[in-house]
């Protein structure tokens, strides 16, 4: 049984949990799923076993401490420690998949909005000129930033698990850490990197095509993995 079927089954079964057990279990689920580099199949199998066990305890009116102990986070760490790692090749493919999707979506929307502004409202230019050197530097640094942001988003989400954190505080922290800081870095990057290298000029609509190609590459990798 593959992991997608297990996930779908898990989503259905979870509805049977009462509120307290559900909160606890979903923290456990998120925390374990966020442990990157671990086999997804094995993760979903153990999550299903824990859910089945929890449902039996609930039916018998027993305490959840029977299953996760007094410190659920420590229990989750023990589980993660014993989960096998995913094959490195598969991991690499997932990283490239993410990268292509990111490049695809950002290039597509860049072209899309530019085209609307130009052809619809006569704003901006009908073509965009790029300095290849600058473009390369900005792309590489952006990719680096995306990796750092994704890494810390995962760290943050794991940190929030098993805590009852105030929603307003959570929202504020998320906005500053993952919205404002990376966004300002991107802006700074565009202004600060000087023009260098040869130039190429492309019509703005072609950016949508380039974006589409990146997206297709990402999908190809997604199907393979």
């Amino acid at each position: 049984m593959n992991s997608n079927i297990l996930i779908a089954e898990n989503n259905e079964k979870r509805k049977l949990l009462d509120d307290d057990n559900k909160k606890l279990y979903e923290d456990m689920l998120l925390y374990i799923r966020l442990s990157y580099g671990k086999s997804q199949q094995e993760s979903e199998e153990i999550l299903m076993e824990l859910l089945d066990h929890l449902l039996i305890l609930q039916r018998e009116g027993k305490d959840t401490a029977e299953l996760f102990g007094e410190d659920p986070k420590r229990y989750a760490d023990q589980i993660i420690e014993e989960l096998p790692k995913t094959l490195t090749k598969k991991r690499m493919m997932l990283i490239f998949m993410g990268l292509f999707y990111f490049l695809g979506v950002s290039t597509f929307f860049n072209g899309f909005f530019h085209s609307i502004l130009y052809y619809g409202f006569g704003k901006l230019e009908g073509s965009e000129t790029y300095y290849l050197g600058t473009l390369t530097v900005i792309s590489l640094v952006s990719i680096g930033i995306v990796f750092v942001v994704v890494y810390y988003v995962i760290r943050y989400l794991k940190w929030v698990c098993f805590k009852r954190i105030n929603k307003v505080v959570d929202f504020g922290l998320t906005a500053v850490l993952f919205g404002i800081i990376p966004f300002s870095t991107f802006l700074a990057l565009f202004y600060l990197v000087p023009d260098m290298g040869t130039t190429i000029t492309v019509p703005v609509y072609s950016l949508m095509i380039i974006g589409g190609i990146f997206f297709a590459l990402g999908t190809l990798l997604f199907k393979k993995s």
Partner: protein
Amino acid sequence: MSVRSQLLKGILEGCILAIISKESVYGYELAMKLQGQGIDVSEGSIYPILLRLQKDKLIQGEMRKSPSGPNRKYYTLTAKGYESLASFKKNWNSLKVPVDQLLTEEEEVE
């Protein structure tokens, strides 16, 4: 880690292998069988051990339809698992008698 939990860790692995060698079981069933034997561990503590035994290829899990109700993951022993169980039994037997003897002697001295 307390002495008790250190002692239990290795022994628990051996007991789990012994139970699975008799018949294939799923997680909850295994926890019940351990408790039925009077081995008092929290029910959750078996899952990290099951994962480790799987990683070491001593047992293997298979999702199977149970006669009543949902699909469950049933565990069976591998050839390596049977070997490991045999060596656990050997080690346990060679320890059991001397340790028992030692502990009773102590009681008599007191």
